[in-house]
């Protein structure tokens, strides 16, 4: 059976440390931006930690919510791309094809989670950062849309290795950069088609919710939280 990749994020464990954000930057060759550009909304964070504050001091409650591409099964971003630069692959991933993107940015407007980022200029990294680039991940040119890919390069590598070694991909073999680096072990990644996998069990638990579910996007990132 085909894999169906999904993720579970335990909001009760998340401390908002943003190690996942840094790891994603390192893994996926994300372009840098300075404070000026960030203020102009030009920063790139394929995974970001949204903070929601409730109440007044001293009874403030803060909720941290890491938001990344939800890889929706009925993604609103997919049908609006005029050139098929984003579509749904057989493993349930919403793939972004950098070569094909002409930059209409309709997909970004149609994403209710605002997880898509656009290359407004040619990306630049001050030396010696280009030495740190991940050779498995393309550097996107100017005018192209990008977003979280569930570290598809790691998925591909694990699948290739498993095939070479004549075995199945085990649960926990694929670890996207964010999942790997979370110190609170709040993130779990795996195959939703495997009922025994940790992510399937978490997704089926009583604490599992999904973001903006009523929009009918069928996201595959499950947020675990004890009550609201």
């Amino acid at each position, binding site marked *: 059976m085909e894999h169906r990749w999904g993720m579970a994020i335990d909001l009760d464990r998340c401390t908002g440390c943003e190690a996942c954000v840094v790891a994603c930057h390192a893994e996926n060759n994300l372009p840098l931006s300075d404070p000026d550009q960030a203020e102009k909304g030009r920063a790139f964070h394929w995974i970001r930690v949204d903070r929601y504050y409730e109440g007044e001091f001293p009874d403030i409650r803060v909720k941290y919510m890491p938001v990344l591409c939800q890889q929706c*099964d*009925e*993604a*609103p971003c*997919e*049908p609006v791309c005029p050139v*098929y630069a*984003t*579509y*749904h692959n057989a493993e349930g991933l919403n793939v972004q094809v950098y070569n094909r993107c002409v930059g209409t940015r309709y997909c970004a407007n149609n994403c209710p989670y605002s997880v898509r980022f656009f290359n407004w200029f040619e990306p630049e990294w001050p030396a010696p950062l280009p030495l740190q680039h991940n050779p498995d991940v393309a550097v996107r040119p100017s005018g192209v849309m990008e977003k979280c890919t569930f570290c598809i390069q790691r998925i591909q590598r694990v699948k290739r290795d498993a095939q070479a070694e004549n075995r199945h991909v085990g649960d926990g073999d694929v670890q996207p950069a964010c999942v790997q680096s979370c110190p609170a072990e709040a993130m779990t990644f795996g195959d939703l088609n495997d009922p025994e996998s940790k992510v399937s069990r978490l997704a089926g638990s009583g604490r599992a919710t999904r973001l903006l579910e009523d929009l009918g996007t069928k996201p595959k990132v499950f947020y675990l939280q004890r009550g609201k």
Partner: protein
Amino acid sequence: MYLTADFADADSVARAITALRPQGFHADHLEVFSTEPVEIPGGLLDRPSHMSLAAVASASTFFVLAFLFVRYAQYDYPLITGGMPLFSWWADGVIFYEFTMFGSITATFVMFLIESGLSKRRAPAPVLQAGRILLRISCQAGQAAVVTDSLRQAGAASVTELERT
């Protein structure tokens, strides 16, 4: 040869056409020239037109072609987007509609060129005069005198032979 008769209004042209009919001249031999569209009363010079039919036929053809093409293209390289079916009338209906209209537009323009005769070589035409209506008759040299007579009786201000330019 071609004769050109110069009239002041559509009624006299109608009289002329009616007078010429028993002499064996019908719509194919006659043509009216004017600087603005003239309605010959009695529909004496109505010519058959297939423009509407052509427009509808072309629109239907373009519709079918668009449908076949889109359906072929969607299945040729099938890519799933947003859980939508590969081919659906809802998602592709607009494309079909526009192509249908485009078919109608193309046919209208082509039929205009054909039915107006602009697409082929024509017989010589008289020089237009603002405010006058000119009637051109194609006749044999021997009939010229009789025809000229009938035209003058119908109210032609002048009847001249049209030079081949």
